[in-house]
């Protein structure tokens, strides 16, 4: 008893082939879309790799790029097969490959589903990479003369401006590190010497933030230095001042940006998987309906199409039997050879 049996006549077969061909071309475009999303994601990770300690995992975008390319190839081939299926002479040369091709399609669909799952799960390692990378980014902010780190200041400033964030968790992270390079500190000044002497590590700490933390929407010009000192500014209370600097931490902003990106890509990949499953089923119907023609010489004859030749259970037990017989076959061979060796 076949699974989901459908009767086909000539007209139905032609319609099926045309529809599945159309869907295959749609699926090729979906493959191109997946490829370009992988490329875009890779570029975004590269742009900010400095802030992630050059340590971020490119596994997911590489997988997406590979999947996109394979999808294009498989779907183009499937479309060609559909196109030729209406012409019996052309279809004959594709027929032997179809069973293997359908197996490959099923495997590919499973892989696509795994990719979609990864898109949703890889957020967690990204969170850790970002936390670590941003902490180091802020530490190296002042090292504009150290080769390899001289652009950290610019990258961090541009990131804080673009993502509207300040510091790692919030702006107070800047109070805990020295972000002014020693080259610009006058060590003969008393104030500088006091500050450096006031902490164990000998760092010049201050309650100030870089200019990139400033919020342009603030009604007053930005207050970035002496932020916790209410008397340093007229009509200023740092407890109630909200619009002066960005309140959000950069780890949160970047994570929400990348998380949103990965969620969207994951959703798209799920949709593409559903499309791929649909075209695989369509191709199976075409294959089975063309194989069961009542009268092979007459193209107008009736035929049947199905998804599985037997029911799910029977197909499953068939596969298990085949695997067991393959295992037994090798054993019998060995036994036979051993017997022959001993006899001879």
């Amino acid at each position, binding site marked *: 008893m076949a699974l989901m049996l459908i009767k086909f006549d000539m007209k139905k077969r032609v319609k099926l082939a045309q529809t599945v061909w159309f869907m295959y071309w749609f699926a090729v475009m979906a493959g191109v879309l997946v490829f370009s999303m992988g490329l875009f994601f890779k570029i975004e990770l590269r742009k900010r790799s400095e802030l992630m300690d050059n340590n971020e995992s490119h596994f997911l975008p590489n997988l997406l790029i590979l999947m996109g390319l394979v999808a294009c190839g498989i779907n183009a081939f499937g479309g060609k097969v559909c196109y030729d299926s209406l012409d019996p002479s052309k279809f004959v040369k594709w027929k032997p490959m179809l069973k293997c091709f359908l197996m490959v399609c099923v495997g590919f669909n499973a892989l696509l589903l795994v990719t979609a799952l990864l898109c949703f799960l890889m957020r967690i390692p990204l969170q850790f990479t970002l936390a670590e990378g941003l902490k180091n980014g802020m530490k190296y902010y002042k090292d*504009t*003369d150290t080769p390899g780190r*001289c652009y950290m*200041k*610019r990258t961090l*400033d*541009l990131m804080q*401006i673009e993502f509207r964030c300040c510091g790692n968790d919030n702006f107070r992270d800047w109070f805990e590190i020295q*972000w*002014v*390079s020693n*080259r*610009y*500190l*006058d060590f003969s*000044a008393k104030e500088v010497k006091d500050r450096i002497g006031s902490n164990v590590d000998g760092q010049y700490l201050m309650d100030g933030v*870089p*200019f*990139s933390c*400033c919020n*342009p*929407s*603030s*009604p*007053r*010009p*930005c207050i*970035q230095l002496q932020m916790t000192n209410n008397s340093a*500014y*007229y*009509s200023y209370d740092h407890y109630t001042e909200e619009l002066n600097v960005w309140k959000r931490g950069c780890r949160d902003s970047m994570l929400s940006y990348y998380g949103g990106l990965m969620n969207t890509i994951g959703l798209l990949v799920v949709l593409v998987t559903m499309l791929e499953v649909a075209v695989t089923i369509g191709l199976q119907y075409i294959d089975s309906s063309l194989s069961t023609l009542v009268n092979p010489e007459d193209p107008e004859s009736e035929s049947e199409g199905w998804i599985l030749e037997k029911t799910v259970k029977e197909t499953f037990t068939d596969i298990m039997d085949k695997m067991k017989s393959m295992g037994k076959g090798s054993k019998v061979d060995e036994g036979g050879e051993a017997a022959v060796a001993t006899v001879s």
Partner: protein
Amino acid sequence: MPFMPVKFNLQKRVKLAQGLWMIYWLSVIVGILLFSLGIFFKIELRKRSEMMDNNESHLVPNLLILVGLLACGVNAFGGKVCHDSLDPIKFAKWKPMLKPFLLLCCGFNALLLLTALLCFLMQFAVYLTLAEGLKNSIKFYKDTDTPGRCFMKRTLDLTQIEFRCCGNNNFRDWFEVQWISNRYLDMSNDLVKDRVLSNVEGKYLMDSVPFSCCNPGSPRPCIQHHLTNNSAHYDYDHRIEELNIWTRGCREALFSYFSSMMTSIGVLIIATIILESVDMAGLKYLTTALETMEDPENPECESDGWLLEKGVKETFGDLLAKLKTLGKTNQVVEGGDAPEAAN
């Protein structure tokens, strides 16, 4: 003697019709492109209209949108005519409309030429509007409590950050206006009183710039206050310091942005004019080839196609003569009426 005659047989006619149909669809896509560029330009002008005193002229983007829509319509119609031209029955219903259609295409090309010219010329207007608008923006920077101007600070800050510029001509423009609101100045402080009294208009002027002028590429944390006072900062010389704040003025930055946009649009329009002319020439050849078939019943016969039925000079002379006769007919009619009235 026809202008640029070409002999056609059935195969050539079919090839011409098919090629022309494809070119017409390409022109439709170009029309859509012009439409979307017009919308993009309009949005960009709107985004920065505060910098231009809400006074900028939307003539060019509106014209682009109109031209884009017209291009789509005209070219879609032309494509339909081409598609039907291979079937004599369908082509018969389009035949009478073709001459006015070609004249319409000529008019449309003239409109395109006008638009391209405007794209290049309106850049001067944009420059003047920008100069005036930016000057006022800097003046209203501090008025974050005045309705209608409360977002000027944010807009100007974001513009300076995005376009990497400072002030109108350069950063010294900020030294000449008071950009801190009086609400945040302690008027009882001696320092503040000195500064306010030190100039005629009673403005609190200082040699500082807003934070949005800061250049993130500078190796040292941004110096925005006491810019001209070398002793206020360690190891600082304002004459040689180059990376601290943006040195370009915002008028120049914004103008170069808009002018490059308008120049590219102008170049695209000129390319569209060339494409439309090719379309018109192709359609003229196709219609004349279909009209001059020696044996109308036999689709396989030969025919001639041309751009103009007579030479360029003769066609021009004909047009002038026609215009003159139109004028003379009016006069004759008036003269005829007058004697009748007299009788």
